[in-house]
């Protein structure tokens, strides 16, 4: 009993130290993070295209619903960005991973903390961009009630967790090849076109939609975005989908990590 409490206290201390130190680092890079936030404007560009075309109305989406959806997709995208493979590749190649392996803490926690800290740094910039869009087209700002908002935040966090796990699997390629970061480009393609980032899933032809929904990508974006936009959505099924994908991918990720670490040690250089 006492032991488990000590353990919980220790974990809490570590988490707090990690998060606060990572947050301080990220604040140093706030100019860059502002640019990253700006780089997430793709849903807003797509909103421009969709509003100019009759395709949204043909699929039963009013201009306002279209606007809300893409704005919500913009917010979800901002807080589910994962750049693990790029930093990990550098750390593995330059040997910065070695001292981390000596610490009594799984190195992946550190990367997770820096992602969370980056999101906290990103928040004010996203709010400013949302305010600008609201000035331009006041009608399209999603206004979920407090319950919906809480659910949407939870869904975004769950979607981020799923993306992070998927990226761990991809990142483990760093142990086998020197230029693994190129793989990120490949993973980005199905995410871009099947998640609902560039087109709402309801505009897809039924067969393509079924195909997309068989992949984890819509859970990463379309589901949280629909929640945030206030569309009617099956909440339980959405969360269950994310949970199932996490349960499937996490063991694979951990297994690959073990195999990769053994290889890293074997390289020894």
């Amino acid at each position, binding site marked *: 009993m006492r032991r488990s409490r000590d353990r919980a206290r220790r974990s809490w201390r570590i988490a707090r130290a990690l998060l606060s130190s990572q947050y301080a680092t990220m604040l140093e890079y706030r100019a860059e993070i502002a*640019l990253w936030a700006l780089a997430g404007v793709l849903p807003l560009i797509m909103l421009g295209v969709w509003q100019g075309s009759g395709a949204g109305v043909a699929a039963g989406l009013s201009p306002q619903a279209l606007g809300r959806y893409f704005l919500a997709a913009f917010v979800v995208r901002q807080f589910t960005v994962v750049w693990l493979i790029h930093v990990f590749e550098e750390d593995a190649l330059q040997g910065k991973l070695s001292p981390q392996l000596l610490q009594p803490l799984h190195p992946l926690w550190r990367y997770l903390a820096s992602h969370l800290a980056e999101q906290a740094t990103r928040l004010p910039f996203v709010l400013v961009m949302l305010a600008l869009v609201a000035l331009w087209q006041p009608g399209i700002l999603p206004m979920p009630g407090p319950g919906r908002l809480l659910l949407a935040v939870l869904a975004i966090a769950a979607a981020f967790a799923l993306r992070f796990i998927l990226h761990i699997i991809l990142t483990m390629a760093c142990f086998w090849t020197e230029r693994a970061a190129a793989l990120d480009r490949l993973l980005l393609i199905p995410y871009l076109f099947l998640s609902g980032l560039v087109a709402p899933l309801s505009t897809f032809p039924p067969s393509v939609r079924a195909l997309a929904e068989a992949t984890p990508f819509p859970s990463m974006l379309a589901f949280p975005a629909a929640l945030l936009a206030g569309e009617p959505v099956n909440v339980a099924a959405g969360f269950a989908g994310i949970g199932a994908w996490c349960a499937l991918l996490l063991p694979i990720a951990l297994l690959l990590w073990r195999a990769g670490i053994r290889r890293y040690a074997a390289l020894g250089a």
Partner: protein
Amino acid sequence: MVRANRRSRLQRYRRTLLRFWGTALAAELEYGANALVELLAVLGNLAGSLFVLSLLYGNGRSLGGWSWDAALVVLGLYTLLDGFTSCLLQPNLSKIVGHVQNGTLDFVLLKPIDSQFWLSARQVSPWGLPGVLAGLVLIAIGLANATPPIGWRDPIALLQPLGLGFTLLLCAAAILYSLWFLMAGLSIWFVKVWNATEVLRTTLVAGRYPVSAYPPALRLLFTFVLPVAFLTTVPAEALLGRASTGWVAGSLLAAVLSLIFSRVFWRRALRHYTSASS
């Protein structure tokens, strides 16, 4: 005497460029698996873009007054320019930031060659070629099916839109280069902004669609602030044989001005540069 001097200088730059690219290619070809990744990325992106375009065009709709085939030419030009970016701009200009951060820019400045030339042309990557090729194929398909049909029977009449389109494509490349160089060069002032070029790349995605597809406010933005219109829409119109004098003149002017501006900008940046230690 002056002319001979200039010619020998030009030859020196040409020889250096060949050496640069020879060594860069040799280094890149060490990573053969990248070719497969790039090929898959280009094909995947193309399939996705065509899919989204087909969603927008379903049931006989049109986009900003552009027919499907005309929009294919725009998408082809975008793919082509994206390939050009992967070949030349990205491998070179994304490294400027690293040079500033690590202080290795000093070594570049000490070399007996123009520093802007070195920074812009030192590397070349073959992995953008699939994009260039796919873009050319898309443009050809779009042009072949476009209405009014391009007169294939009459090569002389064909020469004019193709020539003008090619010229405007060169202008687009010049504008794109200047934008990239500007974003990368800003790192001299803001050392910690190392991803500015990636931001540029993601916002230029707007060039996949003709600029008239956007609402008026964005159209202005994409013409005067972020000149996406000159990158894909204007060359596409020329290729389709419906170029307007105003846009062509604007494109030429924008290209010349942006090149001059990049030069002036680099001079100022170097005056401001105080090396890594200070």
